[in-house]
Structures are given as structure tokens and as C-alpha cells.
């Protein structure tokens, strides 16, 4: 009897798997470990301490950029989720139309266009508007992040709509619900896990992005990632490790929540 094919029996599988995990996680582990280092070295362990965390919390700049990052992620992913929900409804709850595939591609543009290209394009437009209007507020970042987050929010919402049993909406209409009522009482409640997942994905993406922010921000509009990048160009202290570790923990929490929400059976 031939044994079932299994990739784990291929020669070298174990070694490659191990190498992959080391590459993925070793740098992160080192980063986290040295965030608790007593002295300022990134390579010599001087004992456990929370001094770099204290330093980070005491640093007014860190607090400012963190709050700006969270605020921006919240606003942008909220807007993106609303727009993505509308787009998902428009692309799944109408009869098939010509050019539907093109619409999908257009909505998902940020997934395909290199981030740096989007960044440069935004930079040019933003610069033009700045010159014309003189406005230099957070509006540019909000718009840029919103646009960038839409496809990430759109994908889980659309997936949820496509797998939803359409006869449920028909049953609602049969039971005298108007279009609005059928949406309010049937489609929307069943869509909530998709919307929450879309929001969280958008939130993480907005929190993470460096390139878009770097190109679009005006002076004094650093987000946490662009601030860290700026600091690293000068001196690397374990304070950065501490900030990075906290940032990592936050992202992990959101991603875990995302998996909990999406794997919960509706």
C-alpha cells in the first residue's frame, strides 16, 4: 500500500521549517527580551528592569504620537468600514452587471498597487491641495488612511455577505418586511461579525502603515511608526524596544480578537 503523500516527509522539511521559525521569531524575541534590559545595551544582558517602559511612558512625545496613531486608526477604519459595507452590499446584493470584476479590482486597488506608489501619488495630490487651500490639518492623513483601509475592511464583509443564505432576506420580505426592514432586522445583524472583522483589520493596517503616513503627513503629525523610524535614525535605546513591544502586544490583541470574531460561527 502506497503511503499517503505528506509534505512533512520530504527530506529537509524539518530543517527548513525550523529555519523559517527562527527567522520569523528570533529577532522579535530578542527585541522583546532587551526591552526589559537594565542597561542601555542591545546585546549585553544587565538584569531585569522596567526602566525603559517607564521612560517611554514619561516621554511626552511618545504619548502624543501614540494617541495620534490610535485616533487616526479609529477614525480611518470607522470610515473605511462604513464605505466598505456599502461597497460590499452594492457588489453582492445586486444582479450581476457588466464590469463587476473591474469594480472588485478598483475597490481592491491598494492591495495591488505598491504602497510607495500610492504614497507618492497621494503626496503629489496633497501637496497640490495644500498649496491651493493652505489647509495642513489631519484631514489628509484621515482620507489617505481611510482609502488605504477600505479593501482590508471590504474583504471580510463581502465574504460574510456572499456566504449568507439569501432565502433569509426573501423570507423577511415574504413576512412583510420592507427593504429597509429586511436590512435592519436580518442582513445587518447577520453581517455584524464581518463588519467587526473588517473594522479590526482596517484598524491594524492603519496602525501599521509607515509609507502612506510618511508621504502624506505635515510637520508635527508623526504617528507611532513614523516617530519610531525617526528616532531609530538617531540613537537606538531600549526605550524603542519597549515601545515596539507594547505596539506588538496591541496588534496581537486585535488580531486575536479578529480571529475569535471570524471563527465564531454565525
Amino acid at each position, binding site marked *: 500500500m502506497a503511503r499517503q503523500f505528506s509534505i512533512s516527509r520530504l527530506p529537509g522539511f524539518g530543517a527548513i521549517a525550523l529555519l523559517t521559525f527562527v527567522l520569523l521569531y528570533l529577532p522579535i524575541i530578542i527585541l522583546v527580551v532587551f526591552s526589559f534590559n537594565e542597561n542601555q545595551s542591545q546585546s549585553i544582558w544587565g538584569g531585569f528592569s522596567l526602566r525603559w517602559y517607564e521612560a517611554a511612558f514619561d516621554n511626552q512625545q511618545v504619548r502624543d504620537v501614540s494617541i495620534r496613531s490610535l485616533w487616526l486608526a479609529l477614525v480611518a477604519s470607522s470610515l473605511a468600514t462604513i464605505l466598505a459595507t456599502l461597497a460590499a452590499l452594492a457588489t453582492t446584493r445586486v444582479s450581476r452587471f457588466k464590469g463587476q470584476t473591474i469594480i472588485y479590482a478598483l475597490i481592491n486597488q491598494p492591495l495591488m498597487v505598491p504602497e510607495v506608489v500610492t504614497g507618492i501619488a497621494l503626496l503629489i495630490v496633497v501637496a497640490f491641495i495644500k498649496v491651493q487651500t493652505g489647509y495642513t490639518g489631519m484631514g489628509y492623513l484621515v482620507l489617505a488612511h481611510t482609502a488605504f483601509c477600505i479593501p482590508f475592511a471590504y474583504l471580510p464583509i463581502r465574504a460574510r455577505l456572499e456566504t449568507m443564505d439569501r*432565502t433569509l432576506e426573501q*423570507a423577511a420580505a*415574504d*413576512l*412583510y418586511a420592507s427593504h429597509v426592514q429586511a436590512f435592519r432586522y436580518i442582513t445587518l445583524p447577520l453581517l455584524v461579525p464581518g463588519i467587526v472583522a473588517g473594522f479590526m483589520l482596517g484598524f491594524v493596517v492603519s496602525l501599521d502603515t509607515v509609507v502612506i503616513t510618511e508621504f502624506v503627513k505635515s510637520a508635527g503629525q508623526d504617528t507611532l511608526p513614523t516617530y519610531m523610524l525617526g528616532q531609530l535614525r538617531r540613537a537606538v535605546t531600549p526605550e524603542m524596544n519597549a515601545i515596539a513591544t507594547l505596539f506588538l502586544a496591541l496588534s496581537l490583541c486585535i488580531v486575536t480578537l479578529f480571529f475569535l470574531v471570524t471563527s465564531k460561527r454565525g
Partner: protein
Amino acid sequence: MSEPQPTPQPEIEITGLSKVFGQGSAAFKALTDIELNIRTAEFFTLLGPSGCGKTTLLRVIAGFEQPSQGSVRINGQEVAGLGPNARPVNTVFQSYALFPHMTVAQNIGFGLKMLGRPADEVAATTADMLKLVQMEAMADRKPSEISGGQQQRVALARALAPQPRVLLLDEPLSALDLKLRKEMQTELKRLQTETGITFVFVTHDQEEALTMSDRIAVMSGGRILQLGSPSEIYNSPSERFVADFIGDTNFLKVKVVEALTETVNVRLPGGALHSARLPDGLRPAAGDDVSVVVRPEQATLGDGAKAHLTGTVTNSVFFGTDTHIHVNLEDGTPFTLRRQNAGNTAPPAPGTMVGLTLADGALQVIRE
């Protein structure tokens, strides 16, 4: 043969209805020239094999599909352009389509809530419905927490709660096991009689159709082939398809020897003469070759001299209450007869020559 037409307005009146899906070369005609009057408070069944257009016809009545041609009137009102939510019709879906995020009680009350009825009325009617389908104990469960048979009852209660004029049921029992199905058949019939609501019931199960319906429309290929009471459909099938689809049937080729007003006299394969009934609108002349059908219980093993048909027994199959005896007629046509076991002796052994006697009125001429 046709019964007196009722003078009151039909509950549902369908005229010249056709439904085409798709366009151009991909166009598919799912319904062709449907003419149908469904009477108030009757148990009406659409019977036909899978893919014959039963669901499509229900969906047109419910308002989920627009007819390509023809009109649908419900209680005298033309419903073209009315959405499903504006028709006094409720559907029990084949998949039940219970709202998974609502409790049993919320599902049942949904229709009344959408109609804007006050909360106390919704609660009272929901309680009545729960009682009607014996689901009081499950009111606060979610659909995923009850069995298939219970989901079926909830779907029924949900559709009945707004007291529609017509209830449309799309193969509601097909997902249930045999025992539960029999129970629900009785239950449905009881509910229909109690509520006086017109039921339009879809099934591909001929036995279910025969036992439950006041009238049956037999469908095939998007057309209605025959419409009548269960006994009319069973005893006087007008077409080969209907005779074949409903019950077991023997087909015989015969020659018309004399055409009377309501019947014809025909010569059977062995030469014997017998009277045969005619379907509406078919008037064969003397000398025509026609096909007739005979139900297996209409023939008895008889005396060779008086027999209408003779043949050789090929085998017998025991079915408990009765035995099916398979015979090859002299010209080679297979023929099955059904004999009650009570009081009868053992069936004749294979190879035995037997005579078959046909009951009066056993023969029905069919359209090919």
C-alpha cells in the same frame, strides 16, 4: 367527468403564465402557458418530478420572480408589480429559512411585527401559534438548538402567524425522515382544516399528494398536464406521463372497435372486447390504435374461459398485505396485477398459464 365549476371567485387565478430564465441562446422556459384556478380554503398540490417548475411557480405567486407573460390574481387583485411584502401570501421555504439570530418566538412574531401590530398582539398571536404547533416549551431557543422536525413546525407557525390568505409550502416535508413525515402530513392537514387557509403545497412524492390534497395539478417540463381530485388523477390519468408518475400502471395497445359518446369499446391484445373510458377532449374513431392503462388492482386471476387477457406468470413478489404477480401476456407485453393476501392461496408458480379478468371501467384511454 368535469365537476361543476364553483361560482365564487378563485383565491388564486393564473392565466397565460410563462416564465423564461436567461436571454438569447441561454434562455430557458421554466413555465409554459400555465392556467390555474386555486379555490379558497382548498388543499392544492403541485406534483411533479424535480426540475419541472414547481418552485418557480410558487416563487411567481409569492412575488420572488416576475412572470415573463400572463397574470396572477390573488383574491381578485392583479399582483404584478407587488413585492413579496405586499402580497397576502406567506411561504414555508424548503430550507425553512428560519432567522438564526432570533429565538423561536421572535421568528414566529416577525411577520406581525413587520405589519406594525402592537407588541401585546404580537405576543398573544405568537403564544397561540406556539401552542398550535406544540412548541411552547421551545419558545426561547434558537433555531440551531432544535431538531429538524421542530424547525419545520416553527417555519409553519411563522408563516401562519400573520394569517395569510394563502400559504405556499415548497416540499416542506422532504427533509424529514419517514415516520416524522407521516406525522407532519396529518399535522398539516389538521392545520389546514382548522385555519381554513388556502394551502398550495409542492411535492414530488405522489403518495403524499394523493393522501393530502383536495386537488392536484400534475406538472412536467414547465406545463400542467392534468388537474383534478386525487381519485380523478389516479383513476383517470389523461396522459402517459401522469399514469406513469402516479402509482403503478400497466400500459396496453388496443384497437377501437366502436366509439360511443363517453366511452369506446376496444379489442384487447388477446381479442377480447372491453369498454374503455376517455380523457376530456379525446374522441378516437373506430379503427384507431390507442393506448389504455389498467391499475394493477383492477385485474384478478380468473377462469381461462371468461378471461379478458391470458399470459404466463414470470414471478411473484410478496409485499405483506398484498402480492404483485408479474405476467407476460401472449403478445409479450408485461402486466402486473396486485392481489390481496387475506384469504388467498399461494400465488401461481412461474410458468403457469393464467387468465386475467378486468374490472368494469378498468380501462382508461390516454393521450400519448
